[in-house]
């Protein structure tokens, strides 16, 4: 096993990136060991069955080196901030924090860390090969901390500017620690300054301490050549609420791994997602909710519209452990296929070990309702308008969960534009 793992092409490509010295030696070593033992997922691996990321990278990483941080001016940053945004901005270039251009005006702290017990404690090494790759190789870890009792009124926007040569890698690593009864809303998206094939392998860990409210709204709308691997793992403590919204619009291949650990009673985890895919875009959303204690709630809604030769993959897992009585867990995945060559693979999975629970999942795949189309056409809309209206209504359900109005308006515009021109 060990020989096959370490001699695989992808492993040899990225091996030189592992950071042996510096901080986080212990978790880095664990991650490297796990990679050596298990290697990268092969074509048949259940978790990567429909998304052969390893193969894609073997061919795509023609220059498997880190894209280095670069300098950028204020005007470029401003140009990529959406209209009516009111809040703080954190600027990153190729995964590295640019302190000068960032604007921290509220009561929280941002720092580059070289030692922190929490890093690697939420997303432990050994679970996923690409998360391990990030842990073994990330160049800079950034921590956002919100102290106990602080309410951060205005949203904090994280913009990642990526500029990579063909076949290069960026590996953002982020740790968000929100202490007891604090509140914060985070917005995040990346901007590609070049149209090159590159690989972004991000890992975000979030700790939501007791009684806190954290919202994390993210947009993936990159160059159509980007290969994105995005892992987020969140620990949610007593009576805390965490909400994630992920909108995937453009890239070459996207794999999102989202894990929520509901660690105590009364906590709530919400996961919402929307993917609009055209061309040959491939988006894979893997979500995982782990109910470990009684009286917790999880909600999940992922929706997708697929056209051309795109492929959508959804795999939602709900685990309800034996102690997690009185759990309520809901999961739904709806898809609309608009073209002959679009493919959807979905697997809504429930694993339940406790008896006093209410868990349900639903999954549908279909087309636009002919009768609804007719109804609208009968009232004077042309077919394109009618179709656009119905598709927007379908997608709108997810957008409603973005509680930051300007960001919602920005994404709504993007969605409308895409639905109007490409679907």
């Amino acid at each position: 096993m060990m020989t096959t793992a370490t001699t695989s092409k992808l492993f040899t490509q990225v091996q030189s990136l592992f950071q042996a010295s510096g901080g986080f030696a212990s978790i880095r070593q664990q991650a490297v060991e796990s990679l050596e033992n298990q290697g990268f997922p092969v074509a048949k691996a259940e978790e990567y069955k429909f998304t052969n990321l390893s193969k894609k990278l073997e061919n795509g990483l023609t220059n498997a080196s880190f894209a280095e941080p670069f300098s950028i001016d204020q005007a470029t940053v401003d140009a990529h901030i959406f209209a009516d945004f009111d809040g703080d901005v954190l600027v990153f270039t190729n995964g590295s924090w640019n302190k000068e251009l960032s604007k921290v005006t509220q009561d929280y702290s941002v720092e580059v860390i070289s030692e922190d017990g929490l890093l690697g404690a939420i997303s432990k090494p050994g679970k996923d090969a690409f998360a391990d790759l990030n842990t073994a190789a990330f160049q800079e870890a950034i921590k956002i901390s919100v102290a106990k009792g602080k309410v951060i009124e205005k949203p904090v926007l994280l913009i990642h500017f990526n500029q990579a040569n063909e076949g290069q890698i960026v590996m953002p690593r982020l740790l968000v620690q929100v202490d007891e009864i604090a509140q914060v809303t985070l917005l995040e998206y990346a901007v590609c300054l070049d149209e090159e094939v590159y690989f972004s392998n991000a890992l975000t860990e979030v700790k939501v301490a007791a009684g806190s409210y954290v919202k994390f709204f993210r947009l993936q709308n990159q160059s159509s050549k980007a290969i994105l691997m995005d892992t987020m793992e969140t620990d949610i403590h007593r009576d805390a609420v965490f909400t994630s919204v992920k909108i995937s619009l453009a890239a070459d291949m996207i794999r999102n791994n989202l894990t929520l650990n509901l660690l105590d009673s009364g906590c709530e985890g919400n996961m919402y997602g929307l993917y609009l895919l055209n061309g040959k875009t491939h988006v894979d959303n893997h979500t995982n909710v782990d109910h470990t204690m009684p009286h917790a709630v999880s909600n999940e809604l992922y929706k997708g519209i697929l056209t051309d030769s795109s492929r959508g993959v959804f795999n939602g897992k709900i685990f309800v452990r034996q102690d997690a009585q009185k759990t309520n867990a809901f999961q739904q995945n709806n898809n609309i296929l608009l073209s002959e060559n679009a493919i959807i693979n979905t697997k809504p999975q429930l694993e339940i070990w406790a008896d006093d629970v209410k868990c349900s999942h639903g999954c549908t795949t279909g087309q636009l309702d002919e009768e609804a189309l007719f109804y609208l056409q009968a009232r004077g809309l042309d077919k394109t308008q009618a179709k656009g209206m119905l598709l927007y209504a379908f997608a709108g359900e997810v957008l409603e969960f973005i509680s930051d109005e300007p960001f919602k308006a920005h994404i709504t515009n993007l969605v409308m534009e895409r639905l109007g021109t490409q679907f």
Partner: protein
Amino acid sequence: MSKDNQILEELTSKEYEHGWSVALEADEAPLGLNEDIVRWISAKKEEPEWMLEWRLKAFEVWKSMKEPEWANVHYPKVDFQAIRYYSAPKQAKKPKSLDEIDPELLQIYERLGINLNEQKRLQGIAVDAVLDSVSVGTTFKDTLSKLGIVFCSFSEAVQEHPDLVKKYLGSVVPVGDNYYAALNSAVFSDGSFCYIPKGVRCPMELSTYFRINAANTGQFERTLIVAEENSYVSYLEGCTAPQRDENQLHAAVVEIYADKHAEVKYSTVQNWFPGDKEGKGGIYNFVTKRGICAGDYSKISWTQVETGSAVTWKYPSCILKGDHSVGEFYSVAVTNNYQQADTGTKMIHIGKNTRSRIVSKGISAGKSQNSYRGQVQVMKRADNARNFSQCDSLLMGDKCGAHTFPYIDIQNSTAKVEHEATTSKIGEDQLFYCNQRGISTEDAVALIVNGYAKEVLNQLPMEFAVEAQKLLALTLEGSVG
């Protein structure tokens, strides 16, 4: 101990009704598996050369395969060299008719409530009785043959209808399909063969009753059902085994072929010995069942009530190849004590305007694990495919588990696919409602469970529905979640 726990305790300590065995003189193969054993079985059954070659090919394939480990079940691995692959009750000569069958064998079936005496049977069901590795008798053969229907043991079919067997054997489940199917193909000993000619509607239910009697043996039977154009048949299968401490392997293959406008209904009440309440013993039920709707407008319907077996690994599937063909799967799976079930279905839509429906009801109690694993696949050419899946789980007790693994793979934009699943226990409000109206908690549970499983039980033929309901009542009587 609260009343709930008490009732659960009672439920988990229920004895297995069919746990007895009979000392029969048997004609057995030596323990273990190798090429000689495959040849031995084939020679024993006086099979033609092509059949032996087919078996040997399967054996070669099997040797190159690995035991599957993806299922959500955990059990000590099967030692394939510790199993006897053939065991047949000794009979002086081959019985020509039912009257010549050893009365001792008849008694076994009588004790199971299966009377092989045609006069005494309820009209309307023909039975093929399989004991360990061989078929001991088939009833109503003559009545059926007048209509051109062939219903006999598999060995007989190999001798008397080699062309049909050659044509269809392995056409739905190829020898290398999976580990256990390959094993079965190499060593299968008997089973039932059923052929319904063009335009014939089979006037009675056909049935096979499987019984494992001998110790240390595995049962590997093979069933093949061929329905020609415009024909109809309803087929039933039942099974029991004695109570033993060691695990016994049952690896069967069922193949169904439905031509244009043909309809096949296949019902199973599976009640193999589930192991005792400590989880000791019991049957490993690793079965491959698949039907192909080869012709347009054909229909295959699977109904199963799974109450037995220590470990179940079974996915009755439909390949919907003909346009407008229909596949159905109705299942109630009950697990108790340490039972583990990983069961479900595959619906593969290939033809246009194909439809499928999946209704799966899982009930887990005790320390058991019950998994639904299903796949709905809509191929590129399958325009207007329609699927509806519903899988519900009911949990009784806090040490059991219910799991759902639905795979939905769509490659056609005109497909309409819906899946929904729920997991819950029996609602306290429902129990309260019944209590209020003077129905005791026990009766209320029975009522609710019965209603829960009704959608599936309704699909069973009359006589089986009664047996299934009795089985459900026996396993779940008085259980409160």
